[in-house]
């Protein structure tokens, strides 16, 4: 059995890489992918904690898994809407560089 801490550390590392991607990349699509990576890291932590709880209780415990299922469903909806917005931005500006999206400045 792998200690629960290993999963939490891995989840933290993946989340940090996702954050780095959001902060350093300028392509809106890659930023969006980094957000997905962060969601995934959070899901991994969720399932790991649910497993720890299951082991502690000694009986099946599904709440964590069901929440992760909902997170996946909401992420699918979010990706659909987000990508539609990116396509619209590309249509009007011919670029998806987030530094170019400054028309609200001033």
């Amino acid at each position, binding site marked *: 059995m792998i200690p629960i801490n290993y*999963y939490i550390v891995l989840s933290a590392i*993946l989340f940090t890489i996702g954050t780095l991607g959001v902060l350093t990349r300028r392509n809106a699509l890659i930023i969006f*992918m980094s957000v997905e990576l962060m969601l995934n890291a959070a899901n991994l932590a969720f399932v790991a904690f649910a497993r720890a709880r299951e082991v502690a209780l000694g009986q099946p415990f599904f709440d964590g*898994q*069901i929440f992760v299922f909902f997170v996946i*469903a*909401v*992420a699918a909806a979010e*990706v659909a809407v987000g990508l539609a917005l990116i396509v619209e931005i590309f249509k009007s500006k011919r670029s998806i560089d987030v530094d170019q999206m400054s028309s609200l400045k001033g």
Partner: protein
Amino acid sequence: MTLDLILFLILALIAISTAFGMLLSRNAVYCALFLVLNFVTVAVFYLLLGAPFIAMSQITVYAGAIMVLFLFVIMLLGAESLPAAEVLPWQKPLATALAFVLAAEATFLLITRARPEGRVLQPDASANMMDNLRALGAELFSRYLLPFEVTSVLLLVAMVGVIVLIRKEKRVH
């Protein structure tokens, strides 16, 4: 050092390196493919954590549907900056060798681990978690029925929203 731990460490290495690959790759298509690999490794982690349903949802929804949508938009926008075609000389021999290793491994396992009556090996009782899945389904459709239905409405709203966003505007006379 148990087998579990070795598997975990190898998978963790793959997950972290693919995440870094996504972070550092200049090409959006490579980023998306790295992310697919990352999602698949996370799905294997879910299997290790005894959550087969979540693992399969992860592969079908994330690695399948969401990433295909990403790749579709990348192609649509032409956002990929393809580098000059660089041919890796070792790529083809390495791929061929690895394919032979995989075939040999699969054949070896199928022959040596097959049951005496010549059948393919049965999965362990622990791997066969249908009871677990059944209980999860019962939970999902009883205690969590309302959130489940709300999620379906959310997906419908998202779909309608996307269609409204993308649709060409008709001139109103």
